[in-house]
């Protein structure tokens, strides 16, 4: 009998050399439905990596398993050479995380939250203070002063979470929809900070369903649909001969002519 081959820990880590993030057979089911189906993925160190796919494709589930928030049913997630589920403290020290739709410590102000999280990571209080002040000024959150995070707008929340993710200078950033529902000014600030981070040698993995954004920002891209990776590599490779990433994406997931047919009554209302 031939069993499916799941790599052992050492083997998986060895195969992940040179990769900032490596997923090996990562799997998760909810109620018998495979939401993430044995994903293998390599994210090269120093890349700006876009994870794209329609709603419900498994992007958030995958990122949650990589960040240690959701236990996988099978497979391994290796971040900066450390197996996330075998050695969580080491892995979590090397990653910065921005999840989607989760609360923060709402009754702290932005500076208080950064100070708390930095000191909780064991960083000296003065270093935390200096870095937090710099992050807050670069991310243009200084105007918020001591406002509670509960009263922040969506863009401000994303920015303070990004500040918390960058505070300990991690090697990899894992961002779930960092620019979703963010105003253009905040979006530009976030994009600039992320570009500076990758220019300094950091790796960014981020999920999105806005193709133009991914095409604009990313060096690499992976397309995920129905829990499987259906294309992955350099942006140019995935795009291929298509006019845009959008076209290539719709072709890949087999939804090229959606929204056609029917609705002939539309626009005929007399009211």
């Amino acid at each position: 009998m031939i069993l499916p081959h799941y790599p052992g820990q050492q083997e998986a880590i060895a195969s992940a050399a040179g990769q900032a993030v490596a997923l090996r057979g990562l799997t998760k089911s909810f109620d018998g439905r495979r939401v993430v189906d044995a994903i293998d993925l390599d994210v090269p160190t120093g890349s700006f990596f876009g994870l794209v796919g329609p709603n419900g494709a498994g992007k958030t589930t995958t990122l949650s398993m990589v960040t240690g928030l959701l236990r996988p049913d099978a497979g391994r997630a290796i971040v900066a050479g450390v197996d996330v589920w075998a050695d969580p403290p080491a892995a979590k020290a090397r990653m910065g995380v921005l999840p989607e739709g989760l609360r923060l410590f709402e009754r702290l102000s932005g500076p208080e939250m950064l100070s708390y999280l930095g000191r909780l990571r064991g960083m000296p209080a003065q270093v935390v203070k200096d870095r937090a002040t710099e992050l807050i000024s670069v991310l243009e959150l200084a105007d918020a002063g001591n406002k509670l995070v509960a009263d922040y707008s969506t863009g401000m929340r994303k920015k303070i979470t990004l500040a918390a993710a960058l505070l300990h200078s991690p090697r990899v950033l894992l961002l779930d929809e960092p620019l979703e529902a963010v105003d253009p000014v905040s979006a530009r600030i976030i994009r600039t900070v992320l570009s500076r981070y990758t220019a300094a040698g950091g790796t960014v993995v981020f999920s999105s369903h806005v193709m133009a954004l991914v095409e604009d920002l990313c060096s690499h891209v992976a397309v995920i649909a129905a829990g499987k990776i259906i294309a992955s590599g350099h942006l140019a490779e995935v795009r291929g001969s298509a006019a845009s990433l959008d076209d290539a994406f719709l072709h890949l997931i087999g939804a090229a002519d959606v929204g056609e047919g029917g609705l002939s009554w539309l626009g005929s209302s007399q009211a």
Partner: protein
Amino acid sequence: MVGIFASLKWRLVTSRLRATSGATRIWMIVGFVVAVAFVGLITVGLAALRSVPEAATPVVVTLFVVQLVAWVLSPLVAFGVDETVDPHRFALLPIRPQILQRGLLTASLIGYLPLANMVILFGAAVAIGVPWSVFPVALVCAVVQLITCVVLSRAASTSMSALMTSRRGRDLGMAVGFGIFVLYMGFVTLLNSGGDQTGVPAGASSLASALAWTPPGALASVPSLIAAGQLAKAGLAVLIAAATLALAWWWWSVALARSLTTVPSATAGSSPAGRGHEGHAVAIGVVGTMEVVAGRDRLLVWRDPMRRMPWLMIALLTILYPFLIVRGQGAVFAVAFGALLVGAQAGNQYGVEGSGLWLHLQTISDRVRARGEVFGHALAAIVPGTVILLIAVAIQAVWHDDYDKIPAALGVCFAALLGGIAVACFVSAAIPYAMPQSRTSLFASSVPGQKGRTFAASLSVLLGGAVIAVPAGIATVLSLTVAPVWGWVSLLLGLAVGGFALWLSSRLTADRYLERAPEIFAVVSAGDRV
């Protein structure tokens, strides 16, 4: 249009029953039967007052006033219970305000609560409709009372709906909830203080005669005034009641029009945190982590009403309750009950963050920090808890001249406090449960589907804390029966056993948390949706 509102509300009311099945449905039906029996009992009791006419009117006057106050305040305390309360749900539909108002009134009258009120009011009408010739008048008064309650309640909640969608408004709602709790405690204390048996009815009837000229009170006294032939007074009472209803209706229409045409700002009206508190402790080792975590908890207890209000309630209960349950000497020992409640404050330490727990999952992933976190949360409960207990024991000792019982009482209290906290910490990791994060009500403590879990966790904290206090309790018994020196043994035992329990709990809790963190996170994140 009114019919559509009525059928919509009817579907909302019945869908809860239709959505359940099996055991849940049976328990719901049992609950209904109990509620019906309870309401029936009140109604029969009220109707029986008919034979005591001199008591009937004062009682019904008080009932009408309390009922109206309850209707007006309840949306502030438990906002969002009724989906038809929020006019914004209808803002985009092409409905004229007058029709909307009539529709909302109809919808508001359909439901379990209005039905129960209707039945009770029928009993009240029987009580005050003496002789039977004025019973129809009493019945009309009861109907007007119900409509006034609903209209005023809706007017208040509509004008507050913009406020209640903001953080500060909900914080205010929590403060009002606490105020109601204080009123309740005061009421109970008053009743229990007993005193002169003849004084109480006299006080109550003079209160009722003052209340008789408030709008609901006036309504309740109309039948007896007519029966007594005091038609001028009756006319005045009718005028007061009618004017109130008309004003309430007008207030509601104005509030409705305003709330349908203005968009509440999500961020305006929010307040800054005041001076920032950034702290200097660093999480190196268990002690450092404890300092960092306890520093944040202390800040949040001051700042977050969801954490502050329970402490105020506990302080009140711990200090007042011994007076209520124990008369005379020995009341110092009743303070131990408060100690258990303080212990419970360290409970569900992961659930209280909601999905914000992910920030701790990212930063607290080794055993040293996990233990430090447990000690940090424990410390944040031990410090205020100790202050409350010392004050409560001191008050009881001074009041009853019970100084010799202080060591034994402190022994039991510290054992219950530390033991309760120890168990609460472990139960936080073993039986975590979600806490509603929308803060719509101070009294909402569990989310749908986790009621059993919440109950099991709370019960094990109280029982576990009591068990850990047993050695100190035995020494206390010996101090009362054998020799007073056992009181000091009780104090030592309480601190030693409680302290050991906490030390052990920190290890077990940390292991459990590190093992099950993603599962704990999944359970407590459900609090975001409520």
